């Protein structure tokens, strides 16, 4: 499973970071970094939660 980010939408609210800190990081310049390319199965639920919770609907998932 891969995470797709709409970079026009992301506004560094970092809700995803709170939902899945193993996967998402926002740096001091308000840039989002994905810490994995393929989501490991044990983090799947957290990542799905993060995708739903993003207030800007900037995240989606793609089966790889």
């Amino acid at each position, binding site marked *: 499973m891969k995470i797709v980010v709409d970079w*026009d*939408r992301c*506004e*560094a*609210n*970092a*809700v995803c970071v*709170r*939902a899945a800190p193993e996967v998402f990081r926002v740096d*001091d310049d*308000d840039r989002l970094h994905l810490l994995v390319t393929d989501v490991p199965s044990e983090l799947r639920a957290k990542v799905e*939660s993060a995708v*739903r*919770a993003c*207030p*800007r*609907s900037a995240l989606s998932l793609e089966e790889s």
Partner: protein
Amino acid sequence: MMQPNQDNARPTVDFNPTAPGYTENPYPVYAKLREAPVRYWPDGHGWIVSHHNEIQAILRDPRFTSDRRAWSLAAHMEQGSIPEVEELNKHGLFSLPNKDHARVRKLVSPALTPRAVERLRPQIQAIVDERLDSFAGKSVIDIVHDFAEHIPIRVISKMLNIPEERDAAFHRFADSAVKQLFVMLMSPEERERMRVGIRDGMAMVSEVIEDRRKNPMENDILTSLIQSEEQGDRLSKPELVSLVAALLVGGSETTVHLISFMVNTLLKRPELVAQAQAEPELMKGVVEEVLRFDNFGKFGTFRYATEDVEIGGVRIAKGEAVILFFSAALHDEAVYANPQEFDPRRDATGSLTFGHGAHYCIGANLARMEGQIAVASLFRRFPDMKMESEPTFGPHPAIRKMDSFKVRLGA
């Protein structure tokens, strides 16, 4: 009056936003609205959506637009005949096509991220402290007129380097501009006052912009927006005026109510005040939970179907309006355990208080910070503050607007 096309009997709901008592206590009506997620409201010519999941689905669905021109009834409603409102909206964030919307929004969103807003903390604290200083020697003050109304306009104007002399006038503009979203609910006199308020406000915004163009400033959001406009293809002049208007309007009218409602809620829970003073993180939870538990909105925001869509078991036809009742959805039992209880420690992730999706409130982080600082500082300065008179509510088409709300400072 043109009727939208009806193929089958649609589920309908009775709703009267002017019913006595609704503003003071809308919760029984919200419970009734939540009996079904989506039902047509004949008087309002739109589908009332009252459940969290359906509202969120609509806000994530590209087949719905915020552009009023997609409403098949737009030309037949009063709104279409008010040129000042047309002008305010035509190049505004709610009306721009998706790519233009993203381009314009991106010019200001970096200044309103959680980190960017955190850097404004000292300035916001100074504004709040100055207002609290002005209460010296007073025994009774009005939370709305003496406190809440003075903070948000000063904060957003300070961000734009607009001088304090303009605060009262811009606040009046914001008041009018918020009302224009709900024209169908206003009397002719109210509509006229709103029209004049918008016309005068837009003229002031243009004046401020032209003045800044002649006198650019360093590290100034407004100067950099003007420079974007002068570059030619990044921001048009009408988009610039609408954007600045949106910042002033969004930044000043709504946060007033957040502050008033927070103070009212906390005065009724003194044990919570002490806890929140000890734990700043808890005050953040108080902000979110006040907005969920006792939201100041009493009407929905509109979206329009650009093609036929099925939501919540009903078919919304192309050109029809959905009215998203956030304040009803914030008590949706499917999402919140014991929604009628005030619990500032509950998990508010995914809450709809600031909307969701493309038009998620661009000022949400600023509003949160203002709410936290203003209310924490007020209770810290006046720990013996007590309610002197219960809040009264004034007339407004869409906001449960606290009018007079006095406290005895106990200083």
